[in-house]
């Protein structure tokens, strides 16, 4: 099973980026909206004051004997000074002739015979807002027009706008920062159910394939439902595999045993030497098939079970004693003495079935490769923080070269031709040891002939 997952992007980062981008767009929009509203308001308020001042001036105009009488009201200009310290210019035209004020101040646009006209333009190298308003009077029976042009610079407005711009910028920045903090919190809280689910699924194994029952957000419900269905199928599939393996072991081994018995009976009956040789060959082949089938099923079981290793305390002393008892009859058939030597009481954490399988394969090998009338010793000890199951025999030992290669699947020693073997025994033991975080060490005895195979497991 592969431990690497191809990941691209991150939900949290994507959420953050999207929220921040949204916030940035909103903050900038806020800035420009506030600024443009402020500009509009400032312009309108200047226009209103200019209009009020212009109408105050026009109200003070009258015609007496064809002469313009104009008592400029002080308030007209002082009200302009109230809003800001802006400069003021004015020009008054009577009957299309300039009469007083600044003669270079232009009237804004043509008369529309309606309301005041506004224009913004440069006057004396400064930008000014000019209002032009007019009033119709009558003189000697004919209409005359008084026009006033009133202009004000826009420094105050500019200052005000700068201030508002700064405020709006601060507001926008504050808004952005608040949203950034909120986005961070939101991303973290929205990702947390996923983390909880990950943790919950990570705890599942072959012994624990319960559906996830804790409530999850509705968006994750389909995923969790699919996961639960998947785990359910996996559970079914796992139990089927185990059933199949047990079933297959049973169905293959039992007929083989029957065939072997029948072959032995036949062996005893036939007398011709060539027939007896044939039947011996047959029995040998049956033994080989039986062992191979058993080990292949063992190996399949190991592969299956090590994927999700069970975590239970395994008493290695009891386990060793049981295994020695079980194999002793087989050893005695060959007059081999199987000795259990317990030095310490040790235990490890793991799958007892797997450890049994590993030990059985090692002892099986030892019995198989030992000469008759020899001794096999299984020592259970504690050594440098490890629980060790050490098997010593007095057989042919391992070949000098390529000891480590023997752990590979279907690899057999160069010196064991003629002995029935599948080449899976050490592979199984090695995989079991490694699945438990331990190791398999194979070597020859330092004193005398024979092999020394050590299974090491972490102590619990």
């Amino acid at each position, binding site marked *: 099973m592969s431990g690497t997952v191809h990941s691209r992007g991150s939900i949290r980062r994507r959420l953050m980026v999207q929220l921040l981008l949204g916030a940035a767009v909103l903050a900038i929009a806020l800035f420009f909206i506030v600024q443009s509203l402020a500009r509009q308001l400032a312009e309108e308020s200047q226009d209103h004051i200019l209009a009020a001042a212009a109408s105050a001036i026009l109200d003070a105009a009258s015609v007496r004997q064809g002469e*313009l*009488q*104009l*008592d*400029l*009201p*002080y308030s*007209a*200009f*002082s009200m*302009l*000074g109230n809003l800001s*310290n*802006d*400069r*003021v*210019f004015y020009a*008054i035209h009577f009957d299309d002739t300039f*009469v*007083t*004020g*600044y003669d270079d101040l232009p009237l804004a646009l043509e008369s529309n015979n309606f309301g005041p006209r506004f224009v913004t333009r440069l006057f*004396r*190298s*400064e930008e000014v807002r000019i209002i032009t308003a007019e009033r119709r009077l009558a003189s000697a029976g004919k209409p005359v027009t008084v026009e006033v042009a009133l202009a004000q610079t826009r*420094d105050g407005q500019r200052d005000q706008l700068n201030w508002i711009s700064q405020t709006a910028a601060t507001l926008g920045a504050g808004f952005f920062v608040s949203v950034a903090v909120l986005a961070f919190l939101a991303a973290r809280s929205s990702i947390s159910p996923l983390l909880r689910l990950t943790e919950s699924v990570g705890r599942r194994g072959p012994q624990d394939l319960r559906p996830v029952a804790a409530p999850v957000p509705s968006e994750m419900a389909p995923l969790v439902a699919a996961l639960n269905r998947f785990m359910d199928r996996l559970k079914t599939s796992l139990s089927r595999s185990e059933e199949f393996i047990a079933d297959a072991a049973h169905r293959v081994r039992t007929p083989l045993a029957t065939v072997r018995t029948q072959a032995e009976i036949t062996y005893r009956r036939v007398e011709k030497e060539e027939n007896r040789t044939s039947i011996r060959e047959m029995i040998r082949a049956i033994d080989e098939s039986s062992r191979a089938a058993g080990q292949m099923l063992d190996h399949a079981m190991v592969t299956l079970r090590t994927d999700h290793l069970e975590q239970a305390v395994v008493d290695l002393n009891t386990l060793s004693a049981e295994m020695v008892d079980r194999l002793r009859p087989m050893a005695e058939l060959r007059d081999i003495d199987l000795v259990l030597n317990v030095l310490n009481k040790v235990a490890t954490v793991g799958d007892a079935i797997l450890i049994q399988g590993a030990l059985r394969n090692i002892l099986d090998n030892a019995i198989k490769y030992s000469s008759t009338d020899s001794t096999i010793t299984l020592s259970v000890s504690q050594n440098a923080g490890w629980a060790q199951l050490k098997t010593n025999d007095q057989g042919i030992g391992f070949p000098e070269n390529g000891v480590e290669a023997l752990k590979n699947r279907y690899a057999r020693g160069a010196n064991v031709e003629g002995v029935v073997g599948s080449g899976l025994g050490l592979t199984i033991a090695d995989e079991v040891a490694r699945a438990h975080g331990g190791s398999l060490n194979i070597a020859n005895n330092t004193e005398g002939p024979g092999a020394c195979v050590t299974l090491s497991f972490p102590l619990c």
Partner: protein
Amino acid sequence: MRHLILSLVLILYPFTSGAFEIEEQVLFGPENSARMIRVISTGDVRVFEPMITGFLAENTDVAVDYTVVSSSELMKAISQEEASFDVAISSAMDLQTKLANDGFTAPYSSQATEALPEWARWRQDLFAFTQEPATIVLSKEAFAGLPLPQTRQDLISILRQHPDKFRGKIGTYDLRQSGLGYLFATQDSRTSEVYWRLTEVMGALDAQLYCCSSDMINDVSTGKLAVAYNVLGNYALSRADTDRFIVLLPSDFTTVMMRTVLIPRNAQNKELAEPFVDYLLQVAWNNAGQPSKQLYNSIMTLAQKEDSLRRIRLGPGLLIFLDTYKKRSFLTAWENAILQE
């Protein structure tokens, strides 16, 4: 002190080389200095000498060319002839405001200008450095045995009760000649109608018209006048003969004029003009908002009269009374009141 300064007094009547009329020109500081500040001012040399001396003590290589003109000549020099001056000082608030409004000033901002009260500054162009109340000067001799008036209304009552005593013995500015008189009169008329009643009473009693405060005070001192209306209080109090008259700050309202300084647009030594203005403002305002004694030897404490003070407000409102139509109609009304032939 004055003998320490190399002073060059040029009394130039008439001064013909320029179109504007110079009354007096004095050079302070080293002769032929490359660093020269040209000051155009309506203030007497006597008034500004201590301040300029103080400035030169801190800037020893700088010379100050001090030119005295009338306020209307100052206006003409800056706005029409665009003469090259670095600093312009005037008591004519309206004309100074018009110079600033019409763009003849160079804006200047510093710690000293920003420290000014709101009412002592217009934009970054015009800075006030004195507060000079318009007062009523009463002859002690003439008012012996009479109750001293406190308000214009009091004065009107006394004048009406004793027409013979005061006939021909009331002095005030001739608004047609004096810009300051016109400024005071227009501001008085804005504040209260009582101004017009008083003017009519004065007109009925054959008021004498003057060009300047000092002449009026002289005549009060000699007994030729009993009452002088709208006289600069600082002038009166800085005289030696203050025992002969009473300087009254009317308690109904006292119009306060402020002298202002500006830097003309075409100043050639702005880098010298700016510290000069800073120094002037610091000297003027270093005493918690009160005008400095270095500028005016004034014993007048305005703080106690704060409620009745009407400081003339700098700003575009001052342009109104400079308008030809407005001025013509105001002077017509005034002439009708004061010249009752």
